[in-house]
């Protein structure tokens, strides 16, 4: 019989695959070298999924955010930021762990045997703040203020960094569209270099893009401590044995920081805890401040 740990991991993989397939269901686009043009593209998808992927049936929230902020008529993106607030308040970075297609790609790459696997990159404590730099500078400030003579800004993060756009949109479209093949230049080479770097790093360390560069993960992570669906720790049951941190591929000390903004809600810690001190769900906290299945029904706040 498969272990609880293996079953949990497999379920997540199936959910990730289903989410990637549903988000990119316009398969004809891959053959024709064009993209879906239906009205569903006004709706953002929760994960990082380039809207120029031939199969994409919805919009990328980070691309959409830059599109609205870069538009000459708007100084604030109520629609996209409202969407991100709803998704973030519901599950924090649950989307990263369970629904994001680019997260799935990195998960699969990390499964490939490599000569060495690292828990984290050197300089991790500083590098993890890079995603907030990406968010503030490339997603907000530059599209808003670095504008052309018409008052239009560019999607700086998509243009100069996003490897998901290169992999999901650039490569399939350029491969199938001769017009685009004639237009490739230094920017395409630069973005492919970033993609190759992320692929190589994904073999070495778990989810390098999500950890260090993804502005979407940065936004969702801010909601991790307060989201409806979150990790709760029972301090009375926790012995601080560190089993959760050992099981966490992102090397988060969950027993100290259950609401860590880096946690992607994969659930490995809940399965690894030998004392059942870590739970993940929408359960209510106990009256005495503890947060676990150990508090009796009458001791819950609501």
């Amino acid at each position: 019989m498969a272990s609880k740990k293996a079953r949990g991991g497999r379920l997540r993989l199936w959910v990730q695959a289903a989410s990637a397939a549903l988000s990119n269901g316009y398969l004809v686009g891959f053959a024709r070298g064009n993209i879906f043009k239906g009205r569903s593209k006004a709706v953002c998808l929760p994960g990082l999924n380039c809207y120029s992927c031939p199969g994409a049936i919805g919009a990328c929230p980070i691309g959409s955010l830059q599109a609205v902020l870069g538009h000459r008529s708007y100084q604030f993106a109520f629609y996209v930021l409202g969407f991100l607030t709803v998704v973030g308040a519901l599950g924090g970075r649950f989307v990263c762990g369970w629904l994001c297609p680019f997260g799935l790609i990195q998960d699969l790459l990390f499964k490939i045997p490599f000569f060495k696997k690292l828990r984290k990159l050197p300089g991790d404590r500083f590098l993890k703040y890079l995603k907030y730099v990406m968010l503030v500078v490339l997603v907000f400030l530059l599209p808003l203020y670095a504008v052309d003579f018409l008052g239009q800004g560019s999607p700086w993060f998509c243009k100069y960094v996003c490897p998901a756009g290169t992999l999901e949109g650039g490569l399939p479209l350029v491969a199938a569209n001769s017009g685009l093949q004639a237009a490739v230049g230094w920017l395409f080479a630069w973005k492919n270099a970033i993609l190759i770097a992320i692929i190589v790093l994904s073999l070495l360390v778990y989810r390098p893009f999500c950890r260090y560069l993804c502005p979407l993960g940065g936004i969702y992570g801010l909601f991790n401590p307060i989201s409806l669906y979150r990790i709760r720790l029972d301090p009375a049951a926790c012995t601080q044995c560190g089993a959760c941190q050992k099981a966490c591929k992102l090397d988060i000390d969950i027993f100290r920081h259950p609401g860590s903004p880096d946690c992607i809600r994969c659930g490995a810690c809940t399965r690894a805890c030998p004392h059942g001190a870590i739970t993940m769900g929408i359960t209510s906290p106990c009256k005495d401040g503890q947060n676990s299945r150990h508090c009796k029904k009458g001791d819950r706040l609501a």
Partner: protein
Amino acid sequence: MDRRTGLTVHRLAAPLLILLGLIMMAVGVWRGEAAVVLQKAVNICLECIGIG
């Protein structure tokens, strides 16, 4: 803020944020932002795919 008040605030934060997010989305649609998203998403984004 005492502990009980803190817990209540913590408990209410997510539902309030969800409500705020839904209101922001409605305001965004009313301002025409969803149309901007649609316009961007139904055309190949040359910047996104690395053409420029």
